[in-house]
């Protein structure tokens, strides 16, 4: 927990803020430490450790909320924080009101920190990463290189303390590993990746992870493009997770209110196939997957965002809820202590379906199975929902993989895709956590997508 010195510092910041005329104030303190090793040809090619902390002050001045942050947590920053918060508030002309929260009636507090993870020795971690690389090379002689092979773990603490008497603390940790391989058949090269994330180091199986990465690469070797046209598409769960994550902002009430989301005015309407439901669940029992309160200190809750195709709510924080005359959904988010309050999902996922992948392939008959999409940060316009993405996968004939496919793009619109879902797989998985939490999805069979190739 926090040392007394930090408590004193926070009181000094609040005092200085009052001197500057700030009314309600809040300090958000983030603290973290991390460990990571990268293995290259059996050696620790890169070893890194860190310990960081930083805090942000936000304070109300003339009805506006000003922010200032620092990673230098000492007396020399007190004046700068108060002054900057005030100066920033002065320049704002915002009509939406941001408020400091006094607290929810109750919180589902739970200690999810894994003490067990702290007891894993460095030697065990390094040996594991080395084994992962070795297993990848040993898997198949076509594995030409392992461009990256990492093991890492991190822990973090968050403290929210405000002048309305709220004080909340949380702590979490997780371990992760990732391996990326390049397979070559002499002419063609393909890369494949596999990853895991857990609070329990001992669930990591080096051989299994290495095998998965290799099996993601090797079958794609010798891929060719396909004739441009409209195809039914089976989107593998990993590709669905990527697209779904990249599009999660369309549910952000702030973007809806500012006319930057295609879901504006669609509350209560069917925006997807009735086979589809989207869940936001802050209480998942996975490493760093449990959140009792959001970054404004509001108690988190489970909700369906899309229920059998119907949009039931946007993601709200206190400000957007006030503007819309509704209640916050507990999705206030700061990317780090230095960011201002925005909105993000907690653990957000497409609910699992009931169809086997093999059955979906059969139903598709002839079409394309997409295992990987690339270029989401450029080829997807989250405002319009339009996407045109580089893709890889397999050409499917009579429900069987006929040959690998590369150098194609798939294009469409996210909402059209959601409406065109013909079947939902029963192979749900979660991806790596990012931002507020995990994103997950099963594979989806899409009636048709536009594919460009030859």
């Amino acid at each position: 927990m926090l040392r007394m010195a930090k408590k004193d510092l926070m009181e000094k910041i609040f005092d200085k803020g009052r001197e500057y005329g700030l009314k309600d104030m809040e300090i958000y303190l983030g603290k973290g430490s991390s460990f990571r090793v990268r293995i290259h040809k059996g050696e620790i090619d890169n070893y890194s450790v860190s310990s960081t902390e930083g805090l942000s002050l936000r304070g109300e001045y003339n009805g506006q909320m000003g922010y200032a942050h620092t990673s230098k947590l000492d007396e020399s920053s007190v004046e700068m924080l108060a002054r900057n918060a005030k100066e920033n508030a002065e320049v704002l002309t915002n009509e939406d009101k941001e408020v400091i929260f006094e607290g929810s009636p109750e919180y589902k507090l739970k200690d999810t920190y894994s003490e067990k993870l702290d007891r894993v020795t460095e030697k065990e971690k390094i040996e594991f990463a080395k084994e992962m690389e070795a297993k990848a090379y040993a898997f198949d002689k076509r594995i030409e290189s392992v461009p990256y092979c990492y093991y890492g773990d991190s822990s973090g603490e968050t403290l929210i303390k405000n002048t309305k008497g709220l004080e909340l603390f949380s702590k979490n940790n997780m371990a992760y590993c990732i391996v990326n391989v390049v397979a070559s058949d002499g002419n063609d090269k393909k890369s494949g990746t596999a990853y895991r994330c857990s609070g329990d180091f001992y669930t990591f199986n080096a051989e299994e992870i290495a095998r998965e990465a290799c099996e993601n690469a090797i079958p794609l070797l010798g891929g060719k493009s396909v004739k441009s046209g409209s195809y039914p598409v089976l989107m593998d769960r990993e590709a669905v997770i990527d697209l779904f994550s990249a599009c999660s902002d369309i549910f952000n009430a702030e973007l809806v209110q500012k006319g930057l989301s295609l879901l504006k005015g669609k509350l209560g309407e069917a925006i997807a196939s009735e086979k589809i439901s989207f869940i936001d669940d802050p209480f998942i029992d996975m490493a760093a997957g449990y959140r009792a309160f959001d970054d404004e200190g509001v108690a988190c809750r489970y909700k369906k965002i899309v229920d059998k195709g119907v949009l039931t709510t946007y993601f709200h924080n206190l400000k957007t809820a006030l503007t819309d005359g509704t209640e916050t959904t507990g999705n206030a988010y700061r990317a780090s202590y230095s960011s201002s309050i925005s909105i993000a999902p907690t653990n957000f996922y497409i609910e699992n379906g009931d169809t086997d992948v093999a059955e979906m392939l059969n139903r598709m008959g002839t079409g394309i199975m997409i295992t990987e999409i690339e270029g989401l940060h450029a080829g997807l316009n989250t405002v319009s929902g339009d996407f045109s993405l580089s893709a890889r996968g397999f050409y499917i004939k009579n429900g069987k993989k006929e040959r690998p496919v590369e150098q194609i793009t798939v294009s469409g619109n996210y909402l059209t895709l959601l409406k065109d879902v013909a079947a939902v797989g029963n192979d749900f998985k979660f991806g790596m956590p990012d931002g507020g939490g995990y994103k997950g999805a099963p594979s989806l069979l899409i009636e048709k997508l536009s594919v460009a190739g030859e």
Partner: protein
Amino acid sequence: MLDKNFIGSLLDEALSTGGDFAEIYVEDTESNALTMLGGTVYKASAGRDYGVGVRIFDGYNAIYAYTCGSDKEEIAKIVKKAAQALKKDGRIQRAELKEDIIDNIHIIQIPPHKIEKSKKVQLMTAAHKAAKSVDSLISQVSINYSDSKKHILVANSDGRFVEDDRTYVRMHISAVASKGNEMQTGVDGPGAHCGFEFFESLDVEEYARKAARTAVTMIHANYCPGGRMPVVLANGFGGVIFHEACGHGLEATSVAKGNSVFAGKVGQKVANEKVTAIDDGTIPNAWGSTNIDDEGTPTQKRILIENGILKGNMIDLLNARRMNAKSTGSGRRQNFRYAPTSRMSNTYIAPGSDTFDEIIAGTEYGLYAAKMGGGSVNPSTGEFNFSVAEGYMIRNGKIAEPVRGATLIGKGNEVIQRIDMVGSDLAFGQGVCGSLSGNVPTNVGQPVIRVSEMIVGGRDGAQNG
């Protein structure tokens, strides 16, 4: 900043377990950011980021540790922790720290932090109004203003002790056009390693209008047809094609371990003879320039490809060891939270002798990418993709109707062999490049070029030639 004696003691501690090189990096950055949305000042933040990073080499391997803040005890602790990762005998004698005063070529006339926030807001308001005035279909305009002042100190066991200041200013404009249920965007983001005087010579309103015009043009456009076709890429930000398709594959980060399609090919013909490509970190006040890199090595102007022949790579200190080469002053990092590695600075295709009119007239049918979006690449396989923000069909040697939603994909080593025409109108565009060592400001650049054939991702059912 920390004093020389203390840093010397940190280097001693870092070398105490057998490392053969140690480096201390200290950074103090002050930043300001303002967001205007729909004409109101929506967000304002300011902050200070201070931290220290220590790096230790053991042959080809590296240890990196960092911590926030200036508490000497905490810094000494993290250096010790880093050193403990090694347990070797023997200890090298470090060279005495010799202060190096750099010759600053990026003159800052008006430090942005001395400018009142209200003046920055005025500039944003002008840009907002200019974008709105373009067309009644412009439904939203968001403008981000940012400035920062970064002070760094690099000291290492070779005796280097050098400090540098970098001041950045940027304005990012995004305009949205709406019609019925559809929305299209247009963006532009001029920036420089420069003081507030950057905005005195910059027509911010024209940038805003350009972004708005792109959005309006695209809302009226049909989807691009897909397939293989010639592609003409406009000057300036069009240079992102070289950045993605080849630049990343020429960074020592991927070359040194052979994880690049361009590894081991120096001296070989890798591109069409019309292609000469350069990475130049010394252009005064350019967005991707610095006096020294983040390892303290002076930046250079470096030819990567000359008339199609691969000449060199971008190299940092660690990969220089593996490649048995010298650093090219390309070691960069977002901040102290990242160990540096080789990165691009201002990377561009040099001007050729074709003209824009000749290139268009010489193209029977194809795509003209007037504005590019971003992209990405897998350097191991060379596969890249990027998006076209504003595109037009070329028909019968003339620019025809606008098209939306185009993506360009290919393999880097193939596409540079297919650059068959190079114009003379070199220009730059500003980007933020994300890679192993975080996000760093980079310029991309080129004159107008033609690629004889590329796969254009578009939509089925689009009107075809």
